[in-house]
């Protein structure tokens, strides 16, 4: 809402400058976004009187003028304007002024034009930021020859009345009354504690009986509770007066002609949209507010034919729709050059009805935006009278003295208990009751028998808390003290929250940096990681109105998001990265139910120090520090629980388990996928299931006494087939040694000269210990015999 301060001054005198006005209004609840002094963009432009004009000695198309700018000496200006004559008053941009035409800016300088000095430039409407709507007598394509009452040297802003201050308010949806000059004037009066003057409009019309010409009926009295209509005969279409044009312009509305301007003026002044119908196109003079009938259509003012639905409310004549109620008029309903008689409408349409209709038709208009927030049901006759008063004042036609008021409204002003003690207790303040009463009366809230009566224009006052807010904002939010919440609260992170915090700490400790990716991805990402067509991961939570395909589905796997970030870093030539993110997957559960949103830990890395085992090592340390027991790794085989396995190198990836529970997948990214992402180096990633990690983790730690007896150690170098897994060997050794095993650790894998082709040598360090006594050499040797026997069964020999 753009407010003209000059217009505001009709109703309230705040006595402060614009800056102070804006600050105080913001603090009392009418937020000012910005204010603009119109004259600032016209600085340096003054009225000049052309004293003489002659043809330029070196150019036939140019003229040299001597111009009086109010100084002691006239100045010389070269122009190409043909429409200026001796004696004309014109706007002159003086040297040093920056003028803007369209998108181009230029600074006026003293310059020689074809050898003749020129000290300024004549301006047209465009240069002044105006159009012919602002000054209908001016030629839009030539220099603006002023017909205003002004003198040479005068600032152009004051000469043409472009010197208002326009204040831009952000009005919240609960205060449609403030989408008007009078509404804001009321707020200003309350804020500055000064009187508000709003005269009651009145007009003198002809004694013609309106009902002879016009018949108004409301069929749907639920959706239209009030419809007022007035009639104006013999309209004289023309420009509206300069004061009206100025105010409209400062309010951000372009002047059109007197009748249209009047409807806009009343809308801005009172917040009530007005509509004007050409009586010729209201067949049989019948206006009926009803629901559209099946198959009915209307061509709206914008020239678009629209199909109407039976749920939509329309204004119809005896035959056809002539307007969509509260949204837009029909093609022929507007004012035209040859319009003679005009019907003014001022009505109340039910907000939800208007909102739904406007939405369904895709037409959000200034009018619909106002109706859908809720208007004052008592204002229709007043605004109609105001419009007719303006018609009379402007001589724009002959109002008929009688009007029609179809009124089904039953405004019951809500009564809200006025309880000063409760208000103070709620706000934490100590405001005297008398002050509260004063604040409320400034806002037109009457108090009767301990009850606040909500004024008809305040649709938002329903409960004691609403009254508390009114008191608080006039008292000043910042006068409310600051206190500490009383009482004791026990706060603690839940085990899950602590667990997730540890994950972050461990991962940064392992050299991984946290990242932040979008939750939505492109469905194409599934193809990028080579996901099978029938994968369950392709069943997504899909956004019906996405910004674009790129962000149209909620991720069912965090892997592609990580790969995108790795690819981004690779393309920026970052040599090595280690990244992690704890984020969510969104797994659909059904068409009408919410998806599951489990947390996932995703790791990604590439660089010189990255290989399968550095990634696996990181995962191992993570699981150890989180207390996840019985960890084992298996190849991603056919029964792999993760569909993302397709994105990994088949020989260099693994599923990690705790016991029988899968925890996640890790490994080198498949070369094809790497290529698809444009990453030119081996890349590694892991995805771990946080809830599974949490469920598997053992939080409690019990101290085990340090060993009392010495250990026996044996090193074992074995020769086995190339495809024998170290894990199998370890397991076999562990089982064969039995209870006294303390540790079996791989320390070497060798392939080469002394080893038969297709085989490898694997060496382990085995530590054994008895808890109750010193282990003997015989016992250790016996254990080794068992080990070799078990290994022998696998075809593994001592080297």
């Amino acid at each position, binding site marked *: 809402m753009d407010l003209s301060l000059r217009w505001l001054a009709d109703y309230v005198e705040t006595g402060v400058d614009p800056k102070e006005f804006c600050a105080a209004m913001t603090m009392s609840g009418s937020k000012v976004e910005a204010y603009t002094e119109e004259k600032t963009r016209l600085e340096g432009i003054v009225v000049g009187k052309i004293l003489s004009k002659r043809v330029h000695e070196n150019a036939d198309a140019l003229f040299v003028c001597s111009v009086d700018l109010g100084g002691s000496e006239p100045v010389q200006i070269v122009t190409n304007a043909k429409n200026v004559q001796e004696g004309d008053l014109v706007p002159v941009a003086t040297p040093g002024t920056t003028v803007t035409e369209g998108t181009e800016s230029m600074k006026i300088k003293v310059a020689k034009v074809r050898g003749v000095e020129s000290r300024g430039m004549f301006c047209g409407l465009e240069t002044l930021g105006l159009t012919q709507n602002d000054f209908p007598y001016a030629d839009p394509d030539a220099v603006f020859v002023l017909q205003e009452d002004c003198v040479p040297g005068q600032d152009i802003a004051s000469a043409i009345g472009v010197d208002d201050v326009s204040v831009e308010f952000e009005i*919240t949806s609960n205060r449609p009354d403030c989408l008007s000059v009078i509404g804001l004037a009321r707020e200003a009066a309350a804020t500055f504690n000064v009187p508000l003057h709003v005269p009651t409009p009145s007009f003198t019309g002809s004694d013609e009986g309106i009902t002879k010409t016009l018949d108004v009926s409301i069929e749907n009295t639920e959706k239209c509770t009030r419809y007022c209509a007035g009639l104006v005969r013999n309209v004289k279409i023309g420009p509206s007066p300069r004061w009206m044009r100025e105010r409209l312009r400062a309010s951000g509305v372009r002047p059109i002609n007197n009748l249209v301007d009047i409807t806009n003026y009343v809308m801005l002044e009172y917040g009530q949209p007005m509509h004007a119908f050409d009586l010729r196109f209201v067949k049989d003079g019948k206006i009926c507010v009803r629901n559209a009938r099946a198959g009915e259509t209307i061509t709206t003012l914008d020239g678009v034919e629209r199909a109407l639905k039976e749920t939509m409310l329309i204004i119809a004549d005896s035959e056809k729709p002539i307007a969509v109620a509260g949204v837009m008029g029909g093609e022929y309903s507007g004012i035209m050059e040859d319009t003679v008689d005009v019907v003014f409408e001022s009505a109340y349409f039910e907000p939800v009805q208007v*909102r739904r209709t406007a939405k369904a038709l895709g037409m959000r208009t200034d009018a619909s935006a106002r109706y859908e927030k809720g208007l004052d049901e008592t204002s229709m006759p007043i605004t109609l009278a105001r419009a007719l008063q303006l018609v009379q004042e402007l001589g724009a036609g002959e109002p008929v003295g009688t009007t029609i008021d179809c009124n089904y409204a039953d405004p019951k002003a809500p009564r809200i208990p006025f309880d000063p003690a409760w208000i103070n207790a709620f706000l934490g303040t100590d405001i005297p009751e008398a002050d509260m009463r004063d604040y409320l009366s400034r806002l037109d809230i009457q108090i009767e028998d301990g009850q606040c009566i909500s004024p008809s224009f305040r649709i938002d006052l329903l409960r004691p808390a*609403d009254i508390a807010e009114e008191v608080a904002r006039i008292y000043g939010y910042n006068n409310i003290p600051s206190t*500490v919440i009383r009482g004791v609260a026990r*706060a603690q992170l839940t085990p899950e929250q602590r667990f997730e915090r540890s994950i972050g700490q461990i991962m940064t400790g392992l*050299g991984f*940096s946290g990242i932040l990716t979008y939750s939505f991805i492109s469905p194409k990402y599934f193809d990028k990681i080579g996901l099978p067509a029938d994968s369950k991961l392709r069943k997504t939570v899909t956004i019906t109105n996405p910004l674009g395909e790129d962000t149209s589905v909620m991720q069912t796997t965090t892997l592609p998001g990580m790969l995108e970030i790795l690819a*981004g870093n690779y393309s*920026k030539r970052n040599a090595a990265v280690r990244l992690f993110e704890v984020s969510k997957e969104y797994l659909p559960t059904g068409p009408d139910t919410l998806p599951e949103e489990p947390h996932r830990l995703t790791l990604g890395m590439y660089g010189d*120090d990255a290989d399968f085992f550095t990634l696996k090592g990181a995962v191992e340390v993570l699981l150890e520090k989180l207390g996840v027991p019985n960890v084992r790794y298996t190849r991603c085989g056919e029964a792999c629980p993760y569909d993302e396995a397709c994105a990994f190198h088949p020989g260099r990836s693994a599923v990690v388990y705790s016991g029988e529970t899968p925890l996640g997948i890790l490994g080198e990214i498949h070369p094809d996928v790497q290529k698809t992402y444009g990453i030119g180096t081996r890349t590694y990633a892991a995805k771990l299931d946080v809830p599974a990690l949490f469920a598997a983790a053992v939080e409690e730690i019990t101290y085990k006494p340090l060993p009392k007896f010495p250990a026996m150690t044996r090193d074992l170098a074995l020769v086995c087939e190339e495809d024998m897994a170290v894990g199998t060997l370890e397991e076999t050794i562990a089982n064969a040694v039995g209870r006294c095993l303390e540790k079996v650790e791989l320390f070497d894998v060798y392939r080469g000269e002394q080893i038969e082709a297709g085989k490898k040598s694997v060496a382990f360090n085995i530590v054994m210990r008895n808890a109750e006594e010193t282990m003997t050499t015989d016992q250790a040797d016996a254990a080794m015999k068992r080990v070799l026997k078990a290994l022998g069964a696998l075809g593994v020999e001592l080297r």
Partner: protein
Amino acid sequence: MKEQLRSIEAKAQEAISNVADLKALDDLRVRFLGKKGELTAILKQMGKLSAEERPAMGQLANQVRSTLEGLIADKTAALQAAAQNARLAAETLDITMPGTKPPVGRLHPLQIVENEVREIFLGMGFSVADGPEVEYDYYNFEALNLPPDHPARDTQDTFYITDNILLRTQTSSVQVHVMETQKPPIRVISPGRVYRSDAVDATHSPLFHQIEGLVIDKGITMADLKGTLELLMQRLYGDDCKIRLRPHHFPFTEPSAEVDVMCFQCMGKGCRMCKNEGYIELLGAGMVHPWVLENSGIDSSAYSGFAFGLGLERIVMRRYNISDMRLLFENDMRFLEQFRG
């Protein structure tokens, strides 16, 4: 014989003082004091002496031996120390060369600030609640006093999954979940992702982060809301940080406020950063609307409460002077490396 002993002593003394390494010193020890050494050779002649001369000569010989042994020991220590010093000198490193760093990971700046805010609230007795991001319309709008045709819905461009399911536009959706599952006193925060259909640019993202706060108990006042937010901002920005509350409208709070924090660049004087306002808008807050309480089964005549919602990105960007929000989601290592946490 006496002269011989004296001469050996003098000879040995000179030799020991001139010796330069441990090996040569040991050779001297053998030469003078060894079994076949010069001193031993002299002592072997003791038998030839008279009984009267023997004790005196024996005494002198032992004196010489002990002197020489002492000298050798001292010299040994001196030479060992010199050798140690030489070795240490040889091992001198260029300590200006860079250290060998283990890989270092850092938290994302948003995570750093979120953790900080969590800790501040934990210290004030707030627990942390979680809620779904894909949410029913009911929790995001309807239960927050935003019925289906409420015009305030327009201000939050919503991503829809179905007519009834959407991506939450505000963490306020967690309020009702909390009220449905907990009885007052309630003191929780709920950080998380929220979604609005805003095209990506330097200051907009379709996904961003909020931290919701909710307090419900008997006798909670608007002054408590002010005090709590003031404490938060002072912890975040220092003890002299001031806040300012402006009346505003949120359908689920009444009274509602927008909260500005004093610009920490100019301390309220007005500068380019705060667009000459002296204050920067940081969050929305208010007293929980009685309708919202009742709708969630809490007696609004007995209980009152406040709620607030904080935009994390804005705090992060201000704190680190980040002018483009896209940097937060690009995760360029060169960006991430600049943070400590």
